[in-house]
């Protein structure tokens, strides 16, 4: 079989990505048709920057979803003779090619990048969501009540923020620290916040109708504590919720780094919004403090929070890449982009492709998220 030239490589890759193109076109057509009825999401389609960002992000999201259909080889299989193979090399005894070449262990770069997208796009948004819940649950009362609570929480937040991120990672993501149980303790604290957040959210909304309240809060608590026991302590009897200790360590550190910034943003917005008339009206009606915070103030703070959420997923992706780049908390088999870049950089000046491909992938995803955030900001400011 012939090796491929560059135009052929791009054509082959475009064909491999067919599920992504199909899903992307379907999403765009449906959203565009219904854009006047979809609120902020629909308005996104009025801004060019927003559309470009949205397309790039959705491209990677669909790549992560359909990764199994897109890959041409097993991302950890090694095929002899293809060590550092150049892009487009034909694989012996098969009708396939190493579309983007082979890495230093003769694995397919293309399949690894596609699989890496799945890994990055599961950890980064999940960590960001947890960080947001921690930040919101602590930021709302700090901004609303102020006083000693605010002083204390702000001091702790500033303490974490004064740590250079890289140093924190070197201290928190090590094999030694796993033996001491510090990551589990941190997980026990951080993962509790989503449960508290959802329970308080439902309780404050339905507390006038106890029957409904008991049902919703009870269900939230059961599911929440079930997931909590599995994720933080690996004690879920059914084994549905479980997390690899390596991954838990990375996950917890990333949440820990992000939460204080979210806290500061939420606190700032709440301090601004609490002097509005609708808050005073709620207080006069005798609504509870948590109802006002979660159902009056929080929905009105959604604009800046959604924008920051997009930016923060990008930032978390960069942080995860940094961890991978320093080989912290990842297994050598892992196809995530950071550690692939780290593997590839040793032979960078001779065989650039194993490092450049994941580097471009990471860059495009973060760029897409930044553009999306920019589009959202522009559109949300117009109201």
């Amino acid at each position, binding site marked *: 079989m012939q090796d491929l030239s560059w135009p052929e490589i791009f054509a082959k890759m475009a064909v491999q990505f067919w599920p992504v193109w199909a899903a992307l076109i379907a999403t765009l057509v449906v959203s565009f048709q219904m854009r006047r009825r979809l609120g902020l999401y629909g308005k996104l389609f009025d801004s060019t920057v927003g559309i470009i960002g949205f397309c790039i992000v959705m491209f990677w999201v669909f790549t992560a979803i359909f990764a199994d259909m897109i890959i041409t080889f097993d991302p950890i299989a090694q095929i002899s003779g293809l060590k550092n193979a150049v892009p487009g090399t034909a694989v012996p005894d098969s009708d396939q090619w190493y579309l983007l070449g082979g890495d230093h262990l003769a694995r397919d770069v293309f399949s690894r990048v596609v699989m890496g997208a799945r890994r990055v796009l599961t950890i980064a948004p999940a960590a960001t969501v947890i960080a947001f819940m921690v930040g919101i649950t602590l930021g709302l009362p700090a901004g609303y009540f102020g006083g000693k609570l605010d002083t204390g929480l702000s001091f702790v937040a500033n303490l974490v923020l*004064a740590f250079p*991120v890289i*140093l924190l990672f*070197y201290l928190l993501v090590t094999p030694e620290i796993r033996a001491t149980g510090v990551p589990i303790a941190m997980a026990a604290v951080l993962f509790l916040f989503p449960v508290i957040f959802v329970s308080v959210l439902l309780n404050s909304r339905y507390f006038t109708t106890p029957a409904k309240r008991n049902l919703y809060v009870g269900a939230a608590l059961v599911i929440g504590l079930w997931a909590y026991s599995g994720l933080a302590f690996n004690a879920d009897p059914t084994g549905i919720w479980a997390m690899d200790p390596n991954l838990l360590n990375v996950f917890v550190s990333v949440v820990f780094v992000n939460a204080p910034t979210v806290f500061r943003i939420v606190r700032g917005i709440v301090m601004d919004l609490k002097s509005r008339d609708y808050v005073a009206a709620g207080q006069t009606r005798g609504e509870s403090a948590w109802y006002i915070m979660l159902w009056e103030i929080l929905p009105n703070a959604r604009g800046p929070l959604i924008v920051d959420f997009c930016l923060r997923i990008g930032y978390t992706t960069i942080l995860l890449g940094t961890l991978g780049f320093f080989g912290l908390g990842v297994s050598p088999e892992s196809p995530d982009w950071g550690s692939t870049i*780290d593997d590839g950089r040793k032979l960078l000046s001779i065989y650039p492709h194993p*490092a450049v491909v994941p580097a471009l992938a990471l*860059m495009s995803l973060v760029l897409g998220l930044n553009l999306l955030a920019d589009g959202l900001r522009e559109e949300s400011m117009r109201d």
Partner: protein
Amino acid sequence: MLAFLLRRVGVMLLTALALSFIVFCLTNLAPNLEKLARTEGSVRMSDEAVASWIENNGHGGSMVMRYGQWLGVVPGWVRTDDKGVTRGRCLAEGADPASAPRFCGILQGDWGTSTVFREPVIDTISDKLASTGWLMLWVMLVMVPVSLIIGVLSGMREGSRTDRVLSTFSIATTATPEYVSGVILVVLFASATTGISPILAEWGWIEGRTLFLGTATSAMDQITFWNFALPVMTIALYGIGYIARMTRASMTEVMTQQYIRTARLKGVSFSQVILKHALRNALIAPFTVIMLQFPWLLNGVVIVETLFNYKGFGWTLVQAAGNNDIQLLLACSVVAVFVVLVTQLISDIGYVFLNPRIRLS
């Protein structure tokens, strides 16, 4: 003003104490000490031997006491072993116990000994910090003017084509972390097989095989444009986008103010309005941003020094963390935290000084 300063410095010292204690705890965890015992003593030590090594070398006792010793507010440990040899934290090899000082922590200037470099930590740190200082200096010299110019140019006429192009450039650079831009820059400019170097070499425009050097190791002895441009650009690029966007936001806000319109209506030329009226007010916000950029620069320094093999502060931090060099890692952390806190302080104070609208007292 004085009260504000004192309060800020007080909070800073409290933060520094809390942070250094946390770092001390995290570096002196039991598994780290066991690993240290095995590397310093012998790999095949039994668990009892490890425990007694830890005890005999002053790593026993409560964490707070050990932190106090390290800080220099609690007398250093002294221990006489079964052979009658007295050793202690403040005792050099074979020194007289009677004449030794009682306190020896970082407050007394004793930072301990590095187990990786086999020399006093203070020497290693000051040596490497000097190397990183040069890197930071050049990064600042490139980053600050370039980002301010980009920000002012794009904020001057919001929505113009210049603005669109420069804003896109800034967004692109903020989306490119150092380990990505470093890799791309090396492939483009410092690879013998790809990028522009093979073409230039073929035309005979460059003497060596590559245009720039892919490593900055030679910059340790002598900094030249060819060995230092890529590391400096890699760190600066990420910051440029961020500072430029802040400057742009601040500039667009200033340009909509009444006094700018008044000046224009009086017939002052556009360039004069920008230089005399807009710039000074627009540069207050970027100042804070530039100062707060330092913690992130530290991150960039660690990545770039690893990527380009430049033996500075960041490289030392990686070595210390990778080799379980507790004293060196502690010293690195103290320096890093100190840099972050001082820049925060400067940015707070600078903001108050620069902004005429804020009046304390």
